[in-house]
């Protein structure tokens, strides 16, 4: 078990007072971020990223990933107590969590949510521990054509599998990729799309865009909603914890199912949001009495929380092993890696063992510590919501501005952040998805340079993307996914022609 030895080494990196303190700070900040409406995992991480610029990469990633775990935990608190999902991925938790709180079982629901989050992420971390090194070793064989094929696969899967209107996903992707190209072309050194502006010479920084898209726009969106809230308060006692934990084994099937769904959707760019809904729906479908869901069943809390947390954690697997983030937050962490001077990709496992295994070890420890913190301090965090939004909103805006400026010390970036804030606000309301945009912004340059390196290597011959079994398979898979809606429609039509009309509607929803 090589992974086990390396993991122990990772714990060795982690167990210093400084690291433990950073973890605690990260977790507490993360829970705050998760509880507050108008601040989520991605923007919390993006805003706090500048704090880590002067840290060494390992401390930085440990703190940032703990913010992420904290946000995942925190989202459940407001969903259950206030029926307000602090995060999009905790929407499904409100379905049964809030009814439980109304029935006076808030403490149980919270314990269930936190415990299942913990189980979900533990499952995903185990997956990362044992799978990521082999994926990375495999990916060491990749050359530019293979990498480009993998990027293409990521982009195409968004178009083919996303639920939004296809043209809106394409707009989002192509706009992101286009904005990436602004500035100096890394291959030829030529300037493009700068229109003579020295500010645009630097290009559009991914993190500035993210702070605007997620931070500023979220404030605008939150303001136009009704901010009044009424909620339950709950403190968790040891007895409740024991009661819920004793029931856990009975729900092993739900927990396992949600963990698998979550991990799968986390690795592919499906995301925690889709995972939480799917986990909930699957639990409902497999239950003996599906109708009781929505009335305050503990299983209805277990299922989405496990899936959301598994997915959020598993999203780091492709980020570490391939340099391709599985979620928006993972994309921001990837942006962080580049700022700290690390080159994301399979070589990370070879060149920066301390960093990778320190991070993986921190996932274990962070989730244990996070579980203890949320179980003991729920009333405190619920009380945060008493702070009026009129006080929180300007503070978040200031943090966004500080964050945007700190990345490149440019005033122009603060303006850009505001612009992206407006763009994010409008896009969200007219249904242009932001996730493909974010992913395109972070991967665009790397995708382009691997494409062009592949072209230089092959003398401009496009068939290089089908030149061997591996790259050919990935490229073909990418195109299959891109045209998946068309392909499945064709299949559907074909089947309808074969099956007599009498058998009626096909079961697809």
């Amino acid at each position, binding site marked *: 078990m090589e992974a086990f030895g390396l993991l122990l080494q990772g714990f060795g990196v982690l167990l210093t007072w400084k690291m433990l303190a950073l973890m605690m700070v990260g977790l507490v900040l993360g829970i705050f971020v998760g509880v507050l409406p108008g601040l989520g995992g991605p923007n919390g991480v993006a805003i706090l990223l500048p704090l880590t610029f002067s840290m060494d990469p390992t401390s930085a990633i440990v703190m940032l990933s703990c913010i992420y775990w904290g946000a995942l935990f925190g989202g459940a608190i407001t969903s259950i107590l206030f029926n307000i999902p602090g995060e999009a991925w905790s929407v499904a938790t409100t379905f049964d969590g809030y009814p439980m709180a109304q029935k*006076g079982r808030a403490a149980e629901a919270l314990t269930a949510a936190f415990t299942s989050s913990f189980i979900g992420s533990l499952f995903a971390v185990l997956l990362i521990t044992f799978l990521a090194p082999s994926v990375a070793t495999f990916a060491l064989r990749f050359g530019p054509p293979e990498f480009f094929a993998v990027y293409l696969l990521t982009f195409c899967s968004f178009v083919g599998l996303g639920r939004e209107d296809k043209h809106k996903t394409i707009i989002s992707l192509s706009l992101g990729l*286009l904005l990436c190209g602004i500035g100096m072309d890394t291959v*030829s050194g030529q300037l493009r799309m700068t229109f003579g502006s020295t500010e645009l010479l630097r290009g559009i920084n991914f993190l500035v865009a993210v702070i605007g898209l997620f931070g500023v726009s979220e404030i605008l969106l939150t303001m136009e909603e*009704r901010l009044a809230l009424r909620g339950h308060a709950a403190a968790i006692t040891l007895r409740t914890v024991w009661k819920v934990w004793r029931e856990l084994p009975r729900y092993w099937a739900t927990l396992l199912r949600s963990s698998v769904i979550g991990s799968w959707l986390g690795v592919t760019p499906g995301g925690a949001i889709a995972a939480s809904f799917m986990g909930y729906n699957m639990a409902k479908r497999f239950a003996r009495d599906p109708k009781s869901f929505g009335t305050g069943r503990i299983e209805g809390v277990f299922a989405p929380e496990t899936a959301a947390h598994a997915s959020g954690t598993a999203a780091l697997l492709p980020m570490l092993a391939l340099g391709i983030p599985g979620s928006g937050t993972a994309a921001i962490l990837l942006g962080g890696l580049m700022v700290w001077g690390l080159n994301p990709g399979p070589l990370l496992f070879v060149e920066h063992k301390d960093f990778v295994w320190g991070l993986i070890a921190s996932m274990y420890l962070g989730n244990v510590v996070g579980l203890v913190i949320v179980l003991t301090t729920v009333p405190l965090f619920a009380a945060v919501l008493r702070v009026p939004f*009129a*006080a929180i909103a300007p503070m978040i805006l200031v943090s966004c501005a500080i964050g945007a400026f700190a990345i490149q010390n440019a005033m122009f970036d*603060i303006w850009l952040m505001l612009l992206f804030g407006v763009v994010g606000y409008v896009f969200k309301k007219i249904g242009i998805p932001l996730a493909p945009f974010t992913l395109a912004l972070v991967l665009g340059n790397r995708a*382009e340079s691997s*494409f062009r390196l592949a072209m230089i290597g092959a003398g401009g011959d496009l068939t290089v993307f089908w030149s061997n079994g591996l790259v050919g398979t990935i490229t073909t898979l990418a195109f299959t996914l891109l045209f998946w809606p068309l392909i499945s429609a064709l299949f559907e039509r074909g089947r309808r022609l074969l099956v007599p009309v009498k058998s009626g509607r096909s079961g697809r929803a």
Partner: protein
Amino acid sequence: MAESEIEIVVEDPDAPAKNSPVVSSIRTVDMVVSVLLVAFAGLMAFDNWRTGMSWSFDGPQAGYLPFYLSVILGGASLYGLGAAYLSKTELRKSFVTRDQLRRVLQVFLPTLLFIIAIQWLGIYVASFLLVAGFMRYVGRIAWWKSVVTSLVFTAAMFITFDVAFDVIMPKGPLEAAFGR
């Protein structure tokens, strides 16, 4: 059980009313955005054509990929323009009501002023003004509470970023007076 009682209540007296008149439907905004995107794509396509978008002997020139991306973006936006024009559901849905727009501008305009102020006053003084002003005028929170909260927040930011982590921020006359 006592736990079921509602214990945390936050009021929002000037929340947007449900029946506030609709300023714009989603369809209109979708169409405007599509037109803007088509124009943007056209501009980008032109610039990349100027840079060089052809295929040289060793692969694409600098403008090749961005040029075709602009073409894809333009195409998808044109399609979006048509789809939005024909969409009945988007016509029915409201993009923003008058009350909502008022609230959004309540955040947007102060943020705009804040960013302008950063350039003259430095980020810390501007932050103090934004937080205190917003709490007082938008949140209608008592004067002393607003000022104290804002002061504590700004000081905490200054200590974290400037003193502890050495992150350089835009500064103004006040910081200069203190020699930092």
